[in-house]
C-alpha cells in the first residue's frame, strides 16, 4: 500500500462525507430516516458521529480504477485467492472484482476463485452480452445467496447485486450491488432505482468515470437528497471509487487495501437503522 494513495483516499472520503451532512433536518419519525427541509425538499438525518461497531460491515472492491483491460489480464487469480484465504475475524460480506470479464468457453476468474475458496460466484455484466467476451464485475461471497438481482435502467448502466444475510447486531438481509458509471444519465438510472425502492435494502459499490464526478455530485445534491453518495479518487486513474446508498446506510470509511500487485479498496459501511 502506498501511503500517499491511502492518505489521499482518506482525506477525500472525509471531505465528501462532511459535505453530505449539510442541509439536513432530523428524522421525521416515519422510520425511514427521511425528513424535510424548510423549503419542502426531502432530506435524511445526519450520520451520527459515533460508529456502532456492531452494525459495521465491509466490502472489498478489487479494481485498477481503469477500464482499458481485465483486472486479471496480468494477474494470477491465485493472488485474490490468497487474499481471501488470509482474512480472519470480521470477514468482508463480499469481494467484488472489477473487470473480471466473461469470456465464453473459458473459465471466468470468479469461477476459479470460487473453486479454490469454496465461495459462491456471481457475475455482473457492465455491457450487453457478446458472443465472445462480456465486460463485467465478479462477486464472490461466503454466504449462500437467495437472490441475485439485476437492473438495466435508463442510460444502459448495468447494476446487479446479491442479497445476503449479513451478521450485524442482528442478521440483516443486505443487498450489495455494483456498477460502472460513464455518464450522468447512467447515474440517474441507478439513483432512481434506489429512490424508487426497486432494490433490496443495501449499498452500491463501483466505479465512476472521473470526468463526470462533479456533475454527478451536483445532480445528487439537487435531485437525490435522500441518498448518500461517496466518491473518492486516486491519482492517475481514469475512474474514482463510487458508493451510493439509501439513508439507512453510511459509508464510514475506506482504505486502500491489498498489496502492490493487487489493488483493493475496503469500504466500511454502517447500517444506521
Amino acid at each position, binding site marked *: 500500500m502506498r501511503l500517499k494513495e491511502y492518505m489521499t483516499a482518506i482525506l477525500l472520503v472525509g471531505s465528501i462525507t462532511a459535505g453530505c451532512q449539510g442541509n439536513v433536518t432530523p428524522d421525521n419519525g416515519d422510520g425511514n430516516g427521511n425528513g424535510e427541509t424548510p423549503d419542502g425538499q426531502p432530506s435524511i438525518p445526519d450520520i451520527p458521529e459515533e460508529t456502532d461497531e456492531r452494525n459495521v460491515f465491509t466490502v472489498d472492491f478489487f479494481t485498477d480504477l481503469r477500464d482499458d483491460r481485465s483486472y486479471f489480464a496480468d494477474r494470477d487469480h491465485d493472488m485474490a485467492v490468497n487474499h481471501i484465504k488470509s482474512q480472519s475475524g470480521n470477514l468482508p460480506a463480499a469481494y467484488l472484482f472489477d473487470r473480471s470479464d*466473461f469470456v*465464453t*468457453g*473459458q*473459465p*471466468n476468474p*470468479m*469461477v*476459479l476463485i*470460487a*473453486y479454490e475458496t*469454496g465461495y*459462491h*460466484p*456471481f*457475475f455482473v*455484466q457492465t455491457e*450487453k*452480452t*457478446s*458472443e465472445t467476451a*462480456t465486460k*463485467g464485475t465478479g462477486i464472490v461471497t461466503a454466504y*449462500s*445467496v*437467495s*437472490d*441475485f*438481482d*439485476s437492473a*438495466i435502467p435508463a442510460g444502459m448502466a448495468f447494476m*446487479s447485486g446479491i442479497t445476503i444475510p449479513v451478521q450485524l447486531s442482528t442478521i440483516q438481509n443486505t443487498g450489495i450491488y455494483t456498477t460502472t458509471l460513464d455518464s450522468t444519465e447512467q447515474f440517474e438510472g441507478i439513483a432512481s432505482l434506489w429512490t424508487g425502492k426497486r432494490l433490496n435494502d443495501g449499498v452500491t459499490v463501483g466505479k465512476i468515470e472521473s470526468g463526470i464526478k462533479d456533475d454527478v455530485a451536483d445532480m445528487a445534491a439537487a435531485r437525490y437528497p435522500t441518498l448518500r453518495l461517496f466518491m473518492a479518487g486516486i491519482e492517475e486513474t481514469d475512474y474514482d471509487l463510487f458508493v451510493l446508498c439509501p439513508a439507512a446506510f453510511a459509508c464510514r470509511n475506506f482504505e486502500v487495501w491489498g498489496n502492490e500487485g493487487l489493488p483493493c479498496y475496503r469500504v466500511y459501511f454502517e447500517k444506521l437503522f
Partner: protein
Amino acid sequence: MKKTVITLTAAVLSAIMSFAQEQASSSGPAPARDTLKVMTYNLRFGELASMADIAGFISSETPDIVALQECDWATYRERAPKQNGVRFINELAYRTGMFGLYGKSIDYKQGYYGIGILSRYPVVRSERIRLPDCNGMEGKKQTEPRIMLLAEIELPSGRHVTFVCTHLEVSSSEVRVMQSQFINERLEDISPALIAGDFNATPDSPAIAEIQKKWKNLTGPDFTISSDNPVKKIDYIFGKPQGQVEMLSTRTFTDVRLSDHRPIISTVIF
C-alpha cells in the same frame, strides 16, 4: 372428377393467397429466434462418478445451459466419501469453463444439498424459490423441502431467456401436483422460459399433466431411470410459450452411467 380437381385447386390457391396476404400485412421482419442446447442431469450426489468424469461428459456435449440435481455443497456423506467437502457446482463450473449457480434446498451433513445451473452465458438475475409442501399441516405427509432455481440469461442476440432448474418431491403425488401448480403460477408472466430437471413424475402423471398446461415438452419418451435398467421417465426439459418454442433434436443417453439417472440433451429454438 375434373370439376372436383379444379374446385380443390381453386380452394388451395385461395388458401395460399389468403396466407400470403396475412403474412404481408404483418409489418416488420420476422421476430428473432435463438437456438440453445440444453441438458438436464440428476447426479445422485456424486455417488457413482467423480466430478472430473461428470465434467468431462458435460463438456463433450457442449451444452449452452445445464440443469443439475442432487448436488452437494461441502457435505460429508458416508455413501459418497470421495465427494466429501466437494462443492459440486463450483468444481463442475471450474472444469467445464461454464458459469455456475448453486441453490441450496436443505442443510445436510455439514453442508448443503440442492440443485444447480451451469451456463455458457452470463446470468443477469437469479432467484432461489422455495416450492410449496404440506409440512406443518396436520394429517399430511412431511416431505423434504424443495426449491426451483431461476436464472435469467442474456443471450448474444440481446434476448433474455429464463432458465429454471428444479427437483420435485419424490414420495407424494399430492405435493408434486401442488408444486407443479405453483411453478405454473409463479412463472406465469415469464417468457420465453425453459424449465428442466427431475420431476419425479412419469409422463402420464397428474404433476406432468399440470405442467403441460403451460409448458411444452422438449424431450423424447425414453426412460431416464435407472441408468442401467431404465423402467420409467421422470426427467424432462419443458419450454414456453408453447406455440413458439420447438425441439429441434433430443437425446437420452443410454450409455452414460455416471449416476442412477440418464442425462438428456435437447436442442431447442424459441
